[in-house]
Each structure stands twice: as structure tokens, then as C-alpha cells.
């Protein structure tokens, strides 16, 4: 390891460019990655503007005659609006619950030393590694049998899906927020306490505002997790509660596959999450850095 010598003020690194070998490697590698990343995205966009006959024949890079028809037709081929509403309800519900619960848990983990603290963090984090299929079969049976015994319809309900999804983002959210809270000086809490706040008041008035970027980041993460989940949605929903992740496959169970509508619908359901993610990714990077400090 080289010594971390503090350079004298006048001897700062000259703003030299990296050598040509580095610049060329950078150009070639990044061009390859950009092509690999963006060609499917381009195909998605261009195909969503094609008339049906274009996507039934050989592939072409450009639509023969660009049209917005797929964006109109997609709403009637499958009940897309209903799937959309279901996805919004489930994802918003799971996200809100997950973030609120994670804030409380992260506050407890970062500001208190209590019996069971370590057991809790280790258990919660390790559930992250378990295969979803392991919970799926028992959870399905539990929901079916609890429903049979009590008459409460869990299986197929949006509430059960919200409960399930909120636990998927919970471990990461708690871990990241705990890291974030650790980086907030305790004097701030104490100042609030002196001013007469209770511990919960200190959390709400001081910690939460000070860690807003972290909270934004876990909100994005929780929403993306719930919005994109497929496995549990494929089993736990029925016709009325079906979400987009399964509903979109309806375009291809017909005798014809309406690829242009599939692409249009995919694009429409993606734009909100992608735009939100790209706008807020800076917070996610800062959040990851803060979490890693732990």
C-alpha cells in the first residue's frame, strides 16, 4: 500500500488526460456495452410503433409506416386498465407499508442496543438469500387453508399480495436505512430531546428529514420490487386481482401474438419506474455508500 502522503498545496495532480491506451479501451468497451444495452430498448420502442403486419413478418429496424394504433388497441386486447390499477394498488400499498416499517426498525437497530438486536438483523438479512419458491408452496397452502377455515379470502386478494411484497423489500430497506441513520450525528437527536421531543418525535422531526435521500432510495427500490414481481403474482392472483406482471402475458395466449401491442404495453408500464429510477439513482448510489459504511 502506498503511503497516503498529503500533497503540498502547489503539487496537486496536473490535469493530464489518461493515456491513449486507456481512452481507446474506454471507447471500445463502452460502445460495446451501449450497443448491448440499448439495442433491445430500441427494438422495443420501434416495434411498438409498427402495424401488426410488420411484426408478423421478418424483422425490420424501422416501422414500414409508423403508427400509434398499438397504443390504442392494447387496452382492449386484454383488460390492461384493470391490471394497471391492481399493480398500482399493490405496489403503492406494499411500498408505503415497507418504508414506514423499515424506518421504525432501522431506528431501533441504529439507536438502541437491546437483546435480540443481532439475531434480528442476521435473520432478516438472511431471508434475502432464500429462494422464493421455498415460501411459495407453503404460503399458498397457508392462504388457502386459512381461507377455508375462517372464510377470509386471502388467496387471490390484493391484501395478501401487499403483505407478501412488503417483506421482499424490507431487509434491504432496513439495512440501508440503518446505515444511513448511523451516519447522522447523535447530537442532533439529543438536541431535539433537549427541546422536548420524545424518541419518536426525534425520529420524525430530525432523523427522517436528515436522511431523506436514503428514504427516497428505499422507496424507489421497494416500488420497483413490487412492480416487477412475477412468481407470487402468478399463483396468488385471480382474474380480478391480476397484476401487470402476469396480465401482460395475456397478449400471447391468444392464437396470434400481438407483438406490437406487447411492446407498447411493456413500454407504458416501464416508463414510470424507469424514469423514477433514473431521476433518483443518485440517491440510491449515496444510500448504498452510506449503507456500506456500516
Amino acid at each position, binding site marked *: 500500500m*502506498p503511503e*497516503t*502522503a498529503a500533497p503540498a498545496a502547489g503539487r*496537486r495532480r496536473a490535469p493530464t488526460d*489518461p493515456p491513449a491506451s486507456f481512452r481507446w*479501451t*474506454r471507447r471500445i468497451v*463502452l460502445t460495446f456495452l451501449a450497443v448491448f*444495452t*440499448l439495442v433491445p*430498448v430500441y*427494438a422495443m420502442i420501434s416495434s411498438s410503433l409498427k402495424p401488426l403486419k410488420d411484426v408478423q413478418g*421478418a*424483422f*425490420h429496424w424501422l416501422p414500414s409506416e409508423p403508427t400509434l394504433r398499438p397504443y390504442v388497441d392494447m387496452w382492449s386486447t386484454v383488460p390492461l386498465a384493470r391490471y394497471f390499477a391492481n399493480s398500482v394498488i399493490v405496489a403503492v400499498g406494499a411500498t408505503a407499508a415497507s418504508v414506514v*416499517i*423499515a424506518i*421504525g426498525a432501522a431506528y*431501533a437497530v441504529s439507536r438502541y442496543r*437491546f437483546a435480540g438486536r443481532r439475531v434480528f438483523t442476521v435473520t432478516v438479512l438472511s*431471508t434475502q*438469500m*432464500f*429462494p*422464493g*419458491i*421455498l415460501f411459495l408452496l*407453503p404460503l399458498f*397452502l397457508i392462504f388457502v387453508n386459512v381461507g377455508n377455515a375462517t372464510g377470509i379470502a386471502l388467496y387471490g386478494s390484493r391484501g395478501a399480495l401487499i*403483505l*407478501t411484497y412488503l*417483506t421482499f423489500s424490507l431487509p434491504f430497506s432496513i439495512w440501508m436505512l440503518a446505515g444511513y441513520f*448511523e451516519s447522522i*450525528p*447523535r*447530537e442532533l437527536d*439529543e*438536541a431535539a430531546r*433537549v427541546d422536548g421531543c420524545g*424518541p419518536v418525535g426525534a425520529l420524525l422531526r430530525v432523523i427522517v428529514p436528515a436522511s431523506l435521500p436514503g428514504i427516497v432510495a428505499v422507496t424507489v427500490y421497494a416500488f*420497483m420490487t413490487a412492480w*416487477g414481481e*412475477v*412468481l407470487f403474482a402468478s399463483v396468488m392472483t385471480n382474474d380480478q386481482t391480476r397484476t401487470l*406482471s402476469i396480465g401482460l402475458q395475456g397478449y400471447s395466449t391468444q392464437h396470434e401474438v400481438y*407483438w406490437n401491442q*406487447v411492446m407498447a404495453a*411493456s*413500454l407504458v*408500464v*416501464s416508463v414510470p*419506474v424507469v424514469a423514477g429510477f*433514473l431521476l433518483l*439513482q443518485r440517491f440510491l*448510489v*449515496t444510500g*448504498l*455508500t452510506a449503507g*456500506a*459504511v456500516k
Partner: protein
Amino acid sequence: MTSANVSPGTTRAGGAAGGRRGRPGGPGAAGGAPTARARRPRRRLRLPPRLLPYLLLAPAVVAELVVHVVPIAVGVWMSFRDLTLFYIRDWAKAPGKGLGNYRIAVDFDAAIGKDLLGSFLVTVGVTVLAVGLSWLLGTAAAILMQERFRGRGLLRAAFLVPYALPVYAAVMTWGFLFQRDTGMVDHVLVDQLHLTGGDRPFWLIGGNSFWALLTVIVWRSWPFAFLVLMAGLQNVPRDLYEASALDGAGVWRQIRHITLPALRPVNQVLVLVLFLWTFNDFNTPFVLFGKAAPDGGDLVSLHIYQTSFITWNFGAGSAMSVLLLLFLLLVTAVYLIATSRRRTARA
């Protein structure tokens, strides 16, 4: 950066000075009187009753219990039961089966065990290649984009798009691109580059499905590696580079001797997370291939799902899930022990 002495006026005089911990990896003890605060006892918030932390944790604990802990316990119980179609709605009546379900799962001479083994091997192959490639691409991009250049922000946003897309939207798009007659992949390979000598390969059925699946998984997961490594690079102290530049080290030497070693702790977690995600991946093959995955793309989660919901034999499915979990626990434990030992050996 959080500075340690915010709002000195409002705190009690002499009461609280200095954060509980300095920033690890920060450039030394940054000023300040270091001796006085090192031994200060940990300040406990007095006012709340001892119950408060438990109260704050309760919702998280309940949710984890209901969705994860209890179902795992039930799943283990199910794996010892003859839980077939007849007992799905009334599971308490399912008769015990001892280790019977496990025996079926690992009987590699019979059809069920043989298929499970095949699916397991395919999963191992996909996982090793996908983790390696995702890590490689993510590292290359993160390091090459460490320095500012024109268009960096835009390119970074573009690279993150596959990760931000909902799985099903992304995978359905790839499903379209991999169509034999109407897809882009064969159009480029066969019609434009003439690489196959006129053959139009199938991608979503037969042996090629392995490569199709690998492509989609890498496309979706390398941006995650990129994102995490970008965050990791922000913690590498800049003065290390400046010092080594003064010593005459070029950019390639800096990458080898500063950047890559500094990323090692991040990599330890990243590789493990990528491994677990890929090995457990259900969404990608399920959306790409539909309900009947070809052998080349039959990842183990999807395989268990199909076995369970086609035969409605949840006992056997649970036994397979438990075996999968045991395997993952074993690999994770070995990995963590091996990587931590290497780290302590170096220190």
C-alpha cells in the same frame, strides 16, 4: 459528508462531542482532539422504556414471521408429508411419508430425480457464467467511467435502464427478439451477417435456449454490478491516486494496485448477491419460455414450480425446495469462510 460538530450551540455544554464513530476508511483521524472521545461510554437514550425498540421492530418482525419464517417451517414439515392433490384444501389430513419425498428427489435413475439433477446442472452453468460476465462488465464499466468525460452522465443512465425495467417487460422484449422468424437476433445473425450459412436457429426451444437465457440474465444483472461498484468506488480515497501518480504510476497500474484491491470488500458481497439472485431466478425463464421451459433453460426454481403445480405434489416440491436451500446455505457458508479467511490472511 456529515461533519461531526453540527449545531454546537444547542447541545448541552460538554455533554456530547464527536460522533459515535469516525468514518472508517476516511483519511486518518481528521483533526479534532482524539483522545478525549475515544473512551466515552456509549450514550443511551434514557427517556423511553426498554420496550420502545421492540415496539418499533414489531411490525417488521410480524411481517417476516408471517411471510418467511413460518412458511419455511411449514415447508420443512410439508416435505415429510404425502401432500398430494387430495390434501391441498385440507392439509392437516396429509399422511406422513418420512424421507420418501427426498428419496424421490435424489433418485437419479428415475425420471423425477434425473430431471431435477439436469435442471440443477443447467442452473449451476448459467449461474457461474452469468455471475462472471456480469461482474466483469460491471467492473469494466465502473472503472472506465470513474473519471469524468463528456456524456458520462447520459451513458450511466443508459446503462442502468435494463436494471430499472420491470423484469417481465424486459424479458418479453427479449422473447420477441429471439423469435426465429420475426425476431431481431436471427435477422442480424442470418440475414445481415450471414454467420450461420443460411440456417435459422431456434433460440427459445432446444439447446440454444441456454445461451438465450444467459444473454437475458447478463443483460439484466450487469447494471446492478455496475451500480454497486460505482458506489464502492466513491469510497476509494482520492489521495491514494494522487500519491501514486506522484510516484509515477500510470493509470493501468493504479487500477491494478489501488482500485481493484479497494473494491474487494464490495466484491465479496456483490458476487454473493449475484450468485443467489441468479441461482434462485424464476422470473427470467418463466417469462422467456412460458410454462414449459426447454431443458437448456430449465432453472431449478422454475423446475420445482412446474413439478409442484403440474402434478400438485407439494410434498415432493417442498423436499426439492429444502434441498435447494441446504445447497445455498452450504455454498454461502463455504464462500464466506473462504473469502474472510483470505482477507484476514492478507491483513
